[in-house]
């Protein structure tokens, strides 16, 4: 176990290192002056220029420049954005929570739909329910996310006028940004009707969450269904029937855990796909998240922002994946070591 953790952390360390190298080299590959691309300061005064040259060590070779860049990254100085002229880290800390919030809800929803449906489809193998779930999931799986989002908007916002078209919360609620997580911020805010604000947030959430969750949900259905079918074929399930246990006993005591344990890592990796989808959907719903922010940065040729945004998103994904790997390893009992028993 310790060994495994160390190996994973090792992997994490080197991947992060490679990511920082890539982001560093982006500054040189983008058009324009590399110092401007790194710092984000477009027309510095001579004094500023001198201090920037000093902190980015432009006079030494690439290696030392990279070390200087790394040190600045760790100090929290990621440069400033061309367009907003704000420190990148500040921008990121307001946009990132919005994305994380949206993706978390969508992922939770996807699991809440996907796991039970997958289990039922597996248990009712080749019956009507199985076929209908399978066809529905094929449909959900093949529809492009942005198209689905547009269709949902067309239907629920424009035609039926049931749900809001875009944004996170209506403008007449004045919620100061504290953590970036809107629900938390509402609770912290003063002078607003909190219930009404929460309702409003909820209605704003429905469409974007659905458009992201449907695809991941259908993938999870397929993963879980396959695994349930596979486990039901196993000897120990047949043996449990042979011991006279009822269907319910066999499923709850032996079937469920063994079906879900091996696919947990697979399900978790779906989160990264979901995050990508979330970033696309944000643009459509004008959700103030990092996807939207990055697209704006690309339109505006805001090179420091592109560099910082990519570095942030990819590091988060890597850290998330690896910590879940370790967590899953901890809770999976089938991965322990041999024990000798005296007989």
């Amino acid at each position, binding site marked *: 176990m310790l060994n495994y953790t160390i190996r994973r952390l090792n992997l994490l360390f080197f991947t992060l290192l490679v990511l920082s190298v890539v982001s560093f080299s982006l500054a040189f590959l983008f058009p324009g002056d590399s110092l401007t691309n790194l710092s984000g300061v477009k027309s510095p005064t001579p004094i500023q220029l001198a201090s920037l040259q000093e902190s980015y060590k432009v006079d030494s070779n690439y290696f030392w420049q990279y070390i200087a860049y790394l040190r600045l990254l760790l100090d929290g100085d990621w440069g400033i954005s061309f367009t907003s002229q704000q420190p990148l880290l500040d921008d990121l800390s307001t946009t990132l929570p919005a994305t994380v919030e949206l993706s978390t809800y969508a992922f939770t929803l996807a699991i809440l739909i996907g796991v039970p449906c997958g289990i039922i489809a597996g248990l009712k193998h080749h019956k009507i329910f199985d076929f209908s779930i399978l066809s529905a999931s094929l449909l959900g799986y093949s529809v492009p996310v942005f198209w689905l989002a547009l269709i949902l908007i067309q239907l629920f916002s424009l035609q039926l006028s049931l749900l809001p078209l875009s944004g996170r919360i209506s403008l007449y609620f004045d919620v100061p940004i504290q953590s970036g997580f809107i629900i938390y911020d509402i609770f912290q805010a003063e002078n607003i009707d909190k219930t009404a604000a929460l309702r409003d947030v909820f209605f704003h959430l429905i469409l974007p969450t659905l458009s992201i969750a449907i695809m991941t949900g259908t993938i999870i259905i397929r993963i879980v269904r396959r695994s349930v079918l596979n486990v039901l*074929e*196993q*000897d*120990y399930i*047949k*043996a*449990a*029937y*042979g*011991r*006279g*246990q*009822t269907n319910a006993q066999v499923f709850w*005591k*032996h079937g469920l*855990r*063994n079906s879900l*344990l091996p696919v947990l890592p697979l399900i978790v990796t779906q989160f990264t796909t979901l995050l990508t989808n979330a970033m696309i959907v944000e643009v459509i719903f004008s959700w103030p998240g990092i996807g939207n922010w990055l697209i704006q940065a690309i339109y505006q040729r805001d090179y420091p922002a592109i560099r910082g945004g990519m570095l942030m998103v990819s590091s988060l994904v890597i850290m998330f994946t690896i910590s879940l790997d370790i967590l899953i390893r901890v809770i*999976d*009992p*089938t991965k*322990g*070591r*041999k*024990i*000798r*028993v*005296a*007989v």
Partner: protein
Amino acid sequence: MALLDVKNLTLEIDTANGWINVLDKVSFSINNKEIRALVGESGSGKSLVVKAIVGALPERWRIKADRMMWQGEDLLNMRQDKRRKITREQIAVVYQNPATSLDPSATLGDQIMEAVSSKLLSRGWFWQKQQQREKIAITHLHKVGIRDHKTCMDSYPHQLSDDVCQKFMIALALVSQPKLLIADDPTMAMVPSTKIQILKLFKHLNQTRGLSILFVSHDLLSIFSMADSLTVLYCGQTVETGKMDKILKRPLHPYTQALLDSAPSFSKGLERKTDLPTLEGTIPPLQHLPIGCRLGPRCPRAQKDCVKTPEERRIHEHFYRCHFPIHRPTK
């Protein structure tokens, strides 16, 4: 009345080559307090017979039988929950492959406590019952020779060696206090001394508690020392079945004869280091089963009539399926 009476059990399974009769009219019965041995080469279908009795086969396989009676009730034509109740309370199985027959993600303790029959518990609160369950489980682990019950019960199957798992399977089977124990190659992974212990335990339970046993094994010597009666299986057909002493004295089927000859202690007058007598050839693969008597291509006594499947014939309690039996004048 026999405890378990199986008549013409036929099992078809679907393979890449279509449906194949892996069991073809298997018949035998087990009386109360009897130890019946089931022998046959590897691949002859012994484990399938075992699984068919307790219903541990995939649902899509086709299983048919003239009768499969448990104390006068037909197992195949009864409600599923009733059948499960019988297998839960009265029949117990030691599966051949402990590594795959145990739940990989549950501790052995959980698995054995779950199998303790609630009949054996006195009234009490949930936790009191749990304690009684644990006590019964531990007693049985000791019985099969697992002394370190604590470690064993806290472990997962993959953490223990094969022979410990196999002993555990035996404890797991005995813990429900069954009437019939079906033991599929129960001593396979064991060293000789533990093997003798387990066989002694079986014999002891048979004599003191009247436990009936269907003993499936390759090991002719332990079979001869334990069993009262014998059923010989070849390629999914029962070729001969009857009392042990009768068969030993006078086997009627050529396959049984060959089987007995292959056990050194039963072939008299062997020189040292001579080859043991064997039949030519090997057991045919499933997709190339011969028609008629499945032993045909390997049988020293085969004649033209053998392409027709021989009917079962009987002399008292001794059944055989052969057109040209040994020790009998042919018609």
